[in-house]
């Protein structure tokens, strides 16, 4: 047992981890924002459309949920540009992939939220003379938001962790930074220990923020 823990090299290269973490958070934020837009739009479309549109949305959701994210990342970054004539960098490619990926999960979250809005509230909106759009805007969406917030938090956290997959296409996020340091210093235990703590801290911080929102917006208390 001659291994001596030494963090000197880690602190020396800490900027790789720090800027990596910031990039991870940025990637997650942008992808979740786009994904939420996709998810909400498709969920509203799903509950208000006929069989064909529903089948198409279900097809998208099922496809994404049954293909590993890693494979999707490879497909979009290496596969797509060889088939069609488009060019994009690794970051753009990954954000696009994670957006489409998170969109599929968020469709499900929002759809079940919209379904869970009590029938009586919609009746009340109808009875007072609100138009369908007004009912969506003033009754259904705000009620849905409160219902979905807890499961939304879980999805957000797991999407944040999924940004580590961007390391396989050399996006310099947190996990990539850790690999970079490891390759140069061979301090494998130290670098991954520090990285783990950083993921944990950031994850808890995000969760804490979302829990505050939840408490503020709870339907019943």
């Amino acid at each position, binding site marked *: 047992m001659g291994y001596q823990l030494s963090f000197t090299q880690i602190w020396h290269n800490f900027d790789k981890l720090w800027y990596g973490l910031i990039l991870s958070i940025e990637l997650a934020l942008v992808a979740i924002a786009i994904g939420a837009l996709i998810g909400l739009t498709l969920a509203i479309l799903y509950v208000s459309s006929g069989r064909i549109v529903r089948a198409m949305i279900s097809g998208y959701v099922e496809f994404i949920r049954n293909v590993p994210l890693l494979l999707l990342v490879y497909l979009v970054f290496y596969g797509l540009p060889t088939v069609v004539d488009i060019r994009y960098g690794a970051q753009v490619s990954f954000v696009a992939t994670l957006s489409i990926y998170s969109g599929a999960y968020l469709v499900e979250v929002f759809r079940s939220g919209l379904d869970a809005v*009590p029938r*009586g*509230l919609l*009746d*009340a*909106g*109808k*009875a*007072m*003379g*609100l*138009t*369908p759009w*007004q009912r969506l805007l*003033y*009754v259904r969406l*705000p*009620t849905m*938001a*409160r219902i979905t917030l807890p499961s939304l938090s879980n999805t957000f956290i797991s999407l944040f962790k999924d940004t580590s997959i961007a390391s396989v296409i050399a996006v310099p996020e947190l996990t990539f930074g850790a690999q970079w340091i490891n390759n140069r210093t061979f301090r494998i235990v130290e670098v991954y220990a520090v990285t783990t703590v950083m993921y944990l801290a950031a994850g808890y911080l995000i969760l804490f923020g979302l829990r505050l929102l939840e408490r503020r*917006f709870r*339907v*019943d*208390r």
Partner: protein
Amino acid sequence: MSAPPLLQIARLTKSFGMIQVLKSVDLDVAAGEVVTVIGPSGSGKTTLLRCVNFLEAYDGGSIKIDGREVGYVDSAGGKKRSEVDLASMRAETGMVFQSFNLFPHLTAEENVMLGPRRVLKKPLNEAREIARHWLDRVGLAHKAKSLPSELSGGQQQRVGIARAVALGPKILLLDEITSALDPELVNEVLDVVRQLAADGMTMMIVTHEIGFARDASDRIVFMTDGTISAQGSPDALMAQVSDNERLRNFLSRFSATTH
């Protein structure tokens, strides 16, 4: 010749799948009249009420408010009104629900304001004034900023009534509005309804409170199996009890449980 009735229901039919819940119902309600609908569960009372503002689409017959067909362009089973058209028709009726159905994310005041603001398109200040006026009328001015979850059942239902009348409806529909309340909270809600009746509000009330029906309504309608089996002023209806076995059976259950 007197003015035509505000609400005219004629030969109304409605089925859920194979089950016909309304079998040719005829009922007129004059402006200012308070009509109570009683009857056993499954007799079609609530469905009848929900047809009046087209929360349920009726299959046949006709419902007219102020001479206008409610849910269809011409006649039942024909072309339905557009959603926007339906919304403006529904704004002329107010409805209060058994389960209150207050919007959980809005305060009492915001619940009452929503209709004046978004349906009647009133400016914010005016909508708030309307809401304060009606909350005051139902005795809840001090709860304006409370969320529904912070109110008792009786208070929630009074907000529900304020929300319905804030639109200035031609007719108010009350669907078993005390059935979900603890017994000690029933009267505070019924008192509000009595005040509205005294003010001349036209109302159609589905209820299990027979005592209330007797002393607050101009007319009681007794429904069984999707038809009106007896109707008349409270006194006139009681006079029919000896001839109408189903009415006798129905009322005897109440005199056994109440006093």
